[in-house]
């Protein structure tokens, strides 16, 4: 019972945090928030975490761009092939 209640409360907390995060327009999803919360609970500095998140995003953007380039190349290639 107690465990369940705790779990419920934790879940509730996370959802509210998600809402706050949405209000602040952070672009974080619930799972990420869950991980971040546990990291913070472990005593990791939030500013360091912010750095990490940003780095990850940067990396992610790069990947997406690369993929886009690849896609356009792919798009062009079949055309040329067709020609």
């Amino acid at each position, binding site marked *: 019972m107690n465990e369940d209640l705790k779990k419920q409360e934790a879940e509730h907390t996370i959802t*509210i945090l998600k809402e706050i995060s949405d209000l*602040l327009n952070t672009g974080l999803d619930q*799972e990420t928030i869950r*991980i*971040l919360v546990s990291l913070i609970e*472990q005593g990791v500095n939030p500013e360091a975490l912010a750095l990490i998140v940003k780095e990850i995003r940067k*990396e992610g953007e790069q*990947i997406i761009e690369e993929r886009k380039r690849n896609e356009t190349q792919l798009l062009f290639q079949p055309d040329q092939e067709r020609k």
Partner: protein
Amino acid sequence: MSNKAETISKLIYKLVRYSMMRFGKPEQKTLQKLFSFSIQACSSNLTSTIELNEPNILDLIKKKLSQSNSQQSVIEATDKYRKVKKIGILPLNSLNEIIYLFHILSGLPPEKPKYLTETSKRYQQKDTGIQTQTYSNTNENFDQNKTEPIKDKNMKNGDFIENQPKITENMLVKEIIFVLQGIEGKMIHFDHETQTFSLSKRLEISRTTRHLVNKIAELGWIYTKIKKYLEEREKQNELGLIERAFCSSIKDEMNDYYQQISVFDSQVLDFNTQIKNNEINGGENLVLYPFTSTAIFYQKDAKNEQEKDIQNSIASPPMVVLQGDTGPTLRRIYHQARPLISKFKVIAALTDAIKDQNGGAILSVIYNFVSHGDPEIKSMMSRILTKSSKPLFRIAKKWITLGRLDDPFNEFFVQANENVQKDVFWRQKYQIRDKMVPKFMSIEIATKIMVIGKSINFLKHCCRIDQKQLKHEIISQRYQSENTKNAIVPLQNTERQFSIFTEISEHMHNEHKPQIQFLHHNPKVSQGEIPEHKTERDFFLETNPIEARSEMELSQFYSEMEALENLVQKLSKKMNKEVLKIIFRDFKLLDHCTAIQNFILFGRGDFIFYLMDSLGEDLSRPANTIFKHNLLGILDTAVRQSSANDEDEDIIRRLDIKLLEPTSKDSGWDIFSLDYKVGSPINTILTQNAMKSYLKIFNFLWRLKRAEFCLSETWRWHMVSSSLFSHFPGIFPQLHRCYLLRNEMIHFIYHLQHYVLFEVLQCSWEHFLEEAKQAPDLDSVIAAHEEYLNEILDKSMLTPSSELHETALEEIGKISRNRIIDNQNLNEWETHRKLERQTQKLEKLQKMKKSKKIRFFSPQQDSIEKQGVSTPRTEKLVKSLNEQLDSIEIEFQLAFEGFQDLLSQYESSRPILRFLTYRLDFNEFYEKRMAREMKAARIAHTIQSTAKKSQHRTQKSYPGKKLVFHSAKDQSNKNDDFQNNLSDSLESFDSDN
């Protein structure tokens, strides 16, 4: 610990993996790279730059949200924060940290390329007129801050590079510092319409920043305003001393301002060099707060490359957060400038208020500001007041000590009039300019100051008091007052008691050696008291050092005032005494007044009698044949003959005769009057106007006296004639009537004269003497004298038609004067008549003598002669005499009754007149006569009216002439009866008298 590290690394891995999964399946390489970066970041000992507690966090959220979203979301967010807190499963500090994390992440700026495309996209939209706003999440902040279309801005703003430059806080700070010195900047312009400095509207700056900048810029505006005022004043050649002092005191206050600006300036400089140094050192030890409201533009200006770098570092969130000075921010400047703003606002208001004022009026305005509630401003104002009032005090002190009016710019409240004659020197030479009396000075003090200076000048110019002697006197007074002053004013302040005291001591030591003796005379004053006060003061200072200092600063002015007041009180007492002493003792004011009382106001009866007696012959001639020099000799003999001979030679010399402008009908009596000449200082009190009043009184008294004189002359004639006519019993009733009439006249004249001379003149004179002896200053002596004169004029009913008295009074005066003239005419007439009669009688007498002579020879003829003479000639004579007597009697009676009427009217307001009326009719003779006549008149009237009525009636009811005739006869009979009665009773009364 290792367990913890493990969980952390596990979690980080999870985070990295999970996050990267969203971008598709991550390569192992990137994962590893990110993971190692993350571990590094976590293990570096970063600490939060701000203290993470609830209010701080909420504040951060609020700021963040208020920039972008509505108020609603702020409330929502705080609500949610509270909810989580309430659940309590998450520790509070963890919650705070996670919110802080969100805060940082939400502040993510858009990445460059994406941003650029965004803006260019918008351009196109504007150009094509499409108003749809496609704001991406990342640049929402920017959009919120936009106030005007970028296109407009690009077109107008030539100062800037075509691509919008970034405006950093640092730039604004630099700009603001220029503005504070009254110089327009690139971004902050002076708007001539609204007269304010304001940020160019075209710049895209958030409202809060704009507000802040404008607020600071206000100070710049105020500064330029004050500066303008000062420059304007400096240009003026004829700037008053007080205003000049005021300007300089403001300049002193401005020094604070310049100091503050230079502090700002150096702060900016320091900060810039610090930035440079930090850059050189790797830019690690730099703290940059994001200037969140800075508009972000991009610029290609090579010069601002460095600026750009800083901007970049600002633009990205504070990744490097380290300790160090933050440099001047707008807020800081505003904070430091705020007290200056309030202070300078007041000064600006002051300069505005003073613009059209001059001299003392300026001080009044400043004094109004001194009672400001803000102690800071109050102390500043009292500083300004102290400095500005110095010239006034200097002028005042010179004025009250030396009588010198050193006021080239008409600032002092004492005004000297040019070309004032000596006789009106006291009254008109100096005046108080009401406007220039500063508000902190009561009008009494101002008047006293004026009087002191005036007294000094009066003594100098009018009383020909030796300059040195005067100085000597004043300095002795000054010395005393200095001592009293020292007793009040603390020793610390003595240095500011400018020139005057050093001046005094210089005077004492160099010029006036006897003064030093005086100093030795009072060892108690010069040695004993001051040290005593010093110790007291020291004690006070020891116990309350701060209070003492602040009190000294603030009360400088007040103690100055107090000192001046004390000096003024002392000096005014001394000066008044001095002036009175000189006027009374040296110039013998009272002696002159007594002389006037004696000669002009008939104090010396014998002198007047002699004068009238000896002048009579000359004055009876027509006015245009009379010459002053003839009369002067007579005057002199009159003086010599009478008791006036005992008077001082000087006073006798001042006696003069004044002849009025003669008209053709006037006799010498009409134009003659005595005059008394007064010299320079005395004519301050006995002014020309006063002398005119004296002249008027003299004329009145002279006529009165003349009437009396004539009457007594007639008495003499009557005495002679009574013995002469004893042989003519036929003429006796007429003579008797003559005597009665004469007695009546004498009765009237005596009482009127008694009233005027004794009840009016003498009483008022006693009163005046008392007042003059008690008078504290010259002004009250003058006032007493004026009152004395007015009283006399008023009571003897000679008041002119001045504004003081109503017309009735004037009428009384006029009529009573006319009446006197009438009376005089009467008397003259009578005397003429008597003279005529006398000559006739003499003729008769001669004839009679002849006849007597004849009788000697023929005694039988006597009776025949007598009868013969008496029958035709005396008949005629008696008849004419009767006629004359009738007309005189009627004239006198009418005039007398008129006078009585006026008296009874006037009596109610002047109780003193009651005695006169009583005395004039002490045995109710006139009253009874009046009653009788009234009764007679009434009866006559009723008879007449009844006769008319009956006539009317008879005409109506009983027509017939008999009745009418009867009634008419009745009436005439009755009338006759009354007349008989009247004459009978009159005769009986006459005989009684």
